[in-house]
């Protein structure tokens, strides 16, 4: 048993443990933190496989950005967890049963032998370049089109997010800074010259 294998089992254990905690913990903030643990463990496993770039991106993007956003949302929303939990325990046996059946089927179908497939050679090492350089090359040559399509998907995400959240509320008083700046004195005060004496008593009061 090499040190690498030992490390793999260590990180794999925490990855699975984190995932389990995500769905069992009562406090949503704790659940999100467990998810961070899972991501972190997975990133470490990638690191073991010499996929440094992916490992770092996972931490930077998911742990650094997405999970923090999740935390904000969860903290702001103040979700009542107890109600959502209620069904969980009741359905747990069924869930576990289904999961076990699924596991049994997977194992029988694929066979344990097939799981001991030797990993394919590291393409980056074959090209004699670093992992980052190789991903960059592949991404911008062979996988250029998927890369661009992914960009389109992100655009859709933005459009959808704006379309679903941007609201022009009517009747809301809000400042219009440009109008405030552009205001001049004569717009604010209008001097009206009026005769000082009373007019004809028969006229309007």
């Amino acid at each position, binding site marked *: 048993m090499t040190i690498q294998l030992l490390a793999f089992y260590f990180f794999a254990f925490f990855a699975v443990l984190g995932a389990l905690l995500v769905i069992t913990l009562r406090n949503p903030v704790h659940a999100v933190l467990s998810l961070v643990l899972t991501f972190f463990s997975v990133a470490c496993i990638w690191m073991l496989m010499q996929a440094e770039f992916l490992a770092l991106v996972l931490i930077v993007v998911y742990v650094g950005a997405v999970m923090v956003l999740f935390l904000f949302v969860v903290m702001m929303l103040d979700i009542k967890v107890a109600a959502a939990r209620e069904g969980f325990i009741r359905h747990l046996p069924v869930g576990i049963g289904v999961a076990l059946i699924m596991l049994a089927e997977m194992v029988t*179908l694929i066979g344990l032998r*097939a799981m001991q*497939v030797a990993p394919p050679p590291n393409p980056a090492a074959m090209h004699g370049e670093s992992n980052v350089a190789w991903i960059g090359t592949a991404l911008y040559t062979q996988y*250029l089109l998927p890369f661009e399509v992914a960009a389109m998907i992100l655009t*859709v995400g933005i*459009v*959808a997010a704006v379309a*679903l959240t941007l609201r022009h509320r009517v009747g809301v008083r809000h400042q219009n800074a440009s109008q405030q700046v552009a205001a001049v004195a004569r717009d604010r005060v209008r001097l009206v010259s009026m005769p000082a004496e009373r007019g004809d008593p028969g006229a309007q009061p």
Partner: protein
Amino acid sequence: MSWNDVLTMLPELYLTGAICVLLLFDAFAGTRYRSAMHWLSMLALLVTALLVVSAQRAIPATAFSGMYVDDTLAQILKLFSILSVALVFVFSEPYLRMRKMAVGEFHTLTLFALLGIMLLVSAGNLVMIYLGLELLTLSSYALVALDRDSPRATEAAMKYFVLGALASGLLLYGMSMLYGATGTLSLPGIAATLPVTPHQSLAVFGLVFVIAGIAFKFGAAPFHMWLPDVYEGSPSAVTLFVASAPKLAAVGMALRLLDVGLHPLLPYWQDMLAVLAVASLVIGSLVAIVQSNLKRMLAYSTIGHMGFLFLGLSAGTSFGNAAAVFYAIAYVLMSTAAFGVILALARAGFEADRIDDLRGLNQRSPWFAGLMALAMFSLGGVPPLFGFWAKLLVLQSAIGAHMLWLAIVGAFAAIISLFYYLRVVKVMYFDKPAEDSALLVSSDASLRWVLSLNALALLALGVFQGPLLDWCLRGFGG
């Protein structure tokens, strides 16, 4: 990347550019230019269609190192997708105007979805399949939720999103298994490697998940649960879209995956599709009977139709594939006609989506009652309408693939499903209109004309189905 690559996928590139222009136009022009947005979108569709037509080539072309494939199948599916999106725009324009819904987002998101469809049906690689699908579904989720003030639409979007994410996860998992088994993501590459790979059981395992993903996309039972809720909950204009072009995308995706990539595993997926087909036929035809909401009924009818489509796919022959494409086209044109009538009847505050809302339509508007009846008869597969030929072809291909029992189940399902289609006809023709009902057909001229053409096409294509069938057959070297 070469200049050739760019030229090969010119329609998609043009559409992308057009969408960006439309986005900017919508952002800066504001709501005053609603109709301009509509017509510009139609123009974009027209040019895209022309580019697709002009690219007709005898031999398939690939671009971007095999990521993108342009062949007859892709062209058929693209053209009919563009056509159906155009129909969606025309039919939904008055609806959106009356409800003051965000017309700009509707158009751009629908066009994004169309782009996804076009990429999906042209995919030559698992990654492209996945990305095209995500582009399509992400746009669809947003479209369903577009009517933000409707709780039902929000709920439907939520369900669609969560289940869609689950299905995408399954699909992706299956794809990763395929990659693990074959070491390649390219579909032809997978087909070439599968017969020699030592990890075939792994590939078969992945196949199950891929099939589940496909079945979800089609809305085949038991992966159909999202469909009725989404159909009913969405604004009718969005339902019209969800019920049309994505089915063509689904058939394209299934054919790319199963016919191009996984054909060596035919004996495995054939049975799976057959089982899914039977489940869909049964659920679709039975549950639709007890629906009182027209959109929901059409949703179950869709499930049934997807069962028929699977009959064609499960044959695994080029004739079966052509029959499935033919069926998808027929289904799309039939459902645009049916939903088009709903849209034509809908007004502010009145969705016209209950079956009872159609009571006595014949007395109010015989012409539109006739069109609806035509659509219903065609959906039910009454000869000589379009739907009849579609059903006939898939049944024939099932028999040709020695799956007689499947064809028998299909025939029974067709008979049962006639019941609820005919009920709509009965309600329109024989029931008295409710006293307070003011069934009014939209006065929008382009809606009326295009809807009439759409419904009459069901008759025309039923009588002259030959060229279309030939075209579909040519997509599979037939």
